[in-house]
């Protein structure tokens, strides 16, 4: 039995939908807002901006994060920039163009209405951030500077050196701290959400663990917002922070929230290659580097071991410029990543293990001077040198693709509400705007759009139009949810086996990278679907988690997250298996064109795959939301 998914897309012409909807939505009277309580889980760009904005409106907000301070959320690590259709360069940008680039970049697997709204509010985000004191890069005339990013032929990316995510997050964090001081937001740092509580079919609260005391707390509210980021750490090695996890969204999924397109994961083309078995995470080098760096590998396999300076120009293969002459080094992420993999699979990779390609700045340094390059990328070059002990000013960087972002996430309608009424999902945690591939500098845009400019309106409509009974934390659903968490914690601590949590996580990551990574096929996915349940079974039989449930126990925290990844990974592979086409970051080797490009199948797969949890041990139910394109023509994506 499959459920009909209503995306609640407003009627009317695309460009008027959001305005019309904003007018039609019900408002909560200013004096009544303080009577409503809202829980926000996560304090990154989406969570912090939502918590601050809702508090400014007058709602009583509680905000939770697992880090020791909301300022540490992983949005902080975003480097390159944030897109906005300001057209300050007079180079032909517009809301329509940003909309089209995003839809096309996502390989026509995103909802038109959501993406158009994103492009519309992008301009407000920059204004808001400047008003907060975000120190964006400026020209000598005092106006804002821009740079270009992959998948676009206009210059619409705003940036703050190589630390744009940090500066935007600190802007939102400062707004959040302002509201904490004012008493509008109660902040719970070092608290991890372990369960969602649903009462009478509506999201009414969460169970969290105070990570310092180990105590489980119940929190009730009128609505719950998840802004808990993506699930890239299912691969173990990714550019995500170590703490990023799927637990909050997975727990919500098991309580009834549909999970959409989990197989849509993004592999970022410019990361520092793996250096050894000890590797604990991968480090991204901003895509902005591709503005000035040229990607190449040796033409001849026997040159791979040579010092790059000894390889003459004629023996270098600038493969992106060769294959995609109009976008060249600025081809979208999925395309650039696969091209790197192909070159390495062809035996022309460089560096340890042959899994690397060069990103060369020699031409740019000659053209612009070292100082200009330092100004643009200084901190990235320093970081590269610290990690690799090589000087990128004199020797080309070595890069290789790594898991970076997950386009999939909890299914939401136009109002950002999941299939559980009252549960809203923002930022990377939802699936809505990036289709099968996200363009660079669009994650920051989406996180802030959702938090500053969408949820303040749509949440009000939900609260104004929904009958909410008073619920307290002694309700049986809270008691049951808390007992379930206690039980799981006890179980994790009592296995007392022989393998560490990390060893399971690494093994899971290897299965996922090999079989559900940059390229997938039915055979590999079926193997993974055999291997994952076996590994999960062993985990619950043989994991070793020391210490107790009381007090700070980092092994226990990790164990709970890995246990959820071990369940989630299976859904990801199932999703990849059912999608018998290639699109964006989802590349099924069986479905490619003669020259190795992704071959989409719009007849059969122009839909959102929204998976419904069916109960322990039962196969999940696949519900489909058809994607209809009224404003763009479905075309084969070409960057040639």
């Amino acid at each position, binding site marked *: 039995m499959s459920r009909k998914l209503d995306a609640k897309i407003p009627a009317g012409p695309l460009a008027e939908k959001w305005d019309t909807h904003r007018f039609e939505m019900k408002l909560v009277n200013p004096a009544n807002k303080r009577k409503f309580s809202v829980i926000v889980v996560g304090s990154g760009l989406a969570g912090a901006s939502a918590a601050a904005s809702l508090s400014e409106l007058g709602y009583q907000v509680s905000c939770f994060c697992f*880090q*020791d301070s909301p300022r540490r959320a992983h949005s902080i690590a975003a480097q390159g920039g944030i897109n906005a259709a300001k057209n300050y360069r007079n180079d032909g940008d517009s809301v329509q163009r940003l909309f089209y680039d995003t839809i096309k970049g996502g390989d026509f697997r995103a909802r038109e209405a959501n993406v158009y709204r994103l492009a519309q509010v992008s301009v407000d985000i920059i204004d808001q951030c400047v008003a907060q004191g975000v120190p964006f890069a400026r020209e000598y005339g*005092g*106006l804002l500077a821009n740079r270009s990013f992959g998948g676009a032929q206009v210059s619409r990316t705003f940036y703050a050196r190589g630390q744009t995510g940090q500066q935007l997050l600190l802007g939102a964090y400062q707004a959040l701290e*302002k509201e904490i001081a004012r008493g509008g937001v109660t902040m719970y740092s070092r608290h991890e959400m372990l369960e969602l509580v649903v009462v009478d079919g509506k999201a009414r609260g969460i169970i969290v663990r105070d990570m310092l005391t180990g105590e489980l707390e119940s929190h009730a509210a009128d609505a719950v917002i998840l802004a808990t980021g993506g699930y890239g750490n299912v691969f173990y090695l990714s550019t995500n922070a170590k703490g990023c996890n799927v637990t909050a969204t997975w727990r919500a999924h098991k309580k009834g929230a549909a999970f959409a397109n989990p197989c849509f994961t993004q592999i970022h083309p410019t990361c520092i290659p793996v250096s050894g078995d000890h590797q*604990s995470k991968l480090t991204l080098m901003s895509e902005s580097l591709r503005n000035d760096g040229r990607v190449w590998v040796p033409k001849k396999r026997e040159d791979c071991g040579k010092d790059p300076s000894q390889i003459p120009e004629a023996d270098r293969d600038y493969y992106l410029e060769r294959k995609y002459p109009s976008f060249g080094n600025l081809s979208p992420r999925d395309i650039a990543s696969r091209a790197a993999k192909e070159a390495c699979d062809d035996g022309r990779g460089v560096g340890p293990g042959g899994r690397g390609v060069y990103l060369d700045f020699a031409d740019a340094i000659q053209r612009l001077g070292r100082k200009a390059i330092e100004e643009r990328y200084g901190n990235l070059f320093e970081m590269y040198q610290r990690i690799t002990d090589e000087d990128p000013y004199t020797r080309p960087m070595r890069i290789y693709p790594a898991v970076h972002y997950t386009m999939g996430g909890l299914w939401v309608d136009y109002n950002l509400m999941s299939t559980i009424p009252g549960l809203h999902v923002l930022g990377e945690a939802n699936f809505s705007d990036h289709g099968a591939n996200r363009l660079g500098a669009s994650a920051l845009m989406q996180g802030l759009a959702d938090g500053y400019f969408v949820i303040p309106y749509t949440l009000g409509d939900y609260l104004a139009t929904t009958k909410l009974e008073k619920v307290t934390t002694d309700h049986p659903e809270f008691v049951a949810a808390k007992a379930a968490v206690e039980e799981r914690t006890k179980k994790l601590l009592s296995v007392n086996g022989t393998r*560490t949590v990390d060893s399971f996580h690494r093994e899971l990551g290897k299965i996922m990278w090999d079989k559900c990574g940059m390229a997938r096929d039915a055979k590999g996915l079926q193997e993974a679907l055999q291997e994952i349940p076996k590994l999960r079974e062993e985990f619950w039989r043989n994991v070793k988690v*020391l210490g107790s449930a009381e007090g*700070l126990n980092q092994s226990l925290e990790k164990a709970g997250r890995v246990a959820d990844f071990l369940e989630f990974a299976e859904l990801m592979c199932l999703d990849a298996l059912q999608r018998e086409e290639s699109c964006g970051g989802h590349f099924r080797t069986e479905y490619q064109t003669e020259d190795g490009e992704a071959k989409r199948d719009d007849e059969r797969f122009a839909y959102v795959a929204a998976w419904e949890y069916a109960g322990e041990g039962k196969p999940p139910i696949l519900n489909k939301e058809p994607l209809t394109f009224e404003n763009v023509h479905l075309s084969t994506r070409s960057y040639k």
Partner: protein
Amino acid sequence: MSASLHATGKGMNLTLHVWRQAGPGAAGRIVDYAAPDISPDMSFLEMLDVVNERLIAQGEEPIAFDHDCREGICGSCGLMINGSAHGPMKLTTACQLHMRSFKDGDDIWIEPWRAKAFPVIKDLVVDRGAFDRIIQAGGYISAPTGTPQDANALPIPKADADLAMDNAACIGCGACVAACPNASASLFTAAKITHLGSLPQGQPERDRRALAMVAQMDEEGFGGCTLHGECQEACPKGISIDAIMQMNRDFVRASATAVQAKEWSGAA
């Protein structure tokens, strides 16, 4: 894992002396651990991961330490390594420090940040909540979400924007406090005051911000600044002590303005 490190032939043998403390009230002590076979390509935290995996295998609780992004920007990690905040390398957080900075046979002393305002929670983990409260006191520009004027309606000279950015680069790790003989939070506080005070948007609240943030810093139990300059040496983001001069100027001016305002209102 160790087999493959052996295969590289580059493994170092180190001795760690690590602060272990079971909980906030518990007594702590230095415990010695052998760390054999460490690759120079590991980050410092990856070295601790390896040691922890071995401890768990032996049934010993792993060493607790804060960390998250492991790329030097979230500010979670903070360790005193051989008496230096974040270790021997300038402009580098502990997570970005690599073991090639050490040599075979080295002894490494690892301790938490030491400051009254940063109480130890467990092992190497401390409570830096005081920093959030300093920001709450005034480390923001009150610009509620709405539709402000167009961003380019307010040109900002590049030099001002650059100075703001230099100071906004602070990651809130607390190395400045840990390095300071007085455990002062002046560099942290001053960086935010200078970031916001360098921009035209930050002017209306400038006086109030300086007074409130400085007062909160004192209330949290951080020491006073006596211009040793250790903070600037330890700062992984290279924030200059010039910020502290700026903070002092702003504070003095704001205090004088406040006194004057009081006198005027008294006269009226």
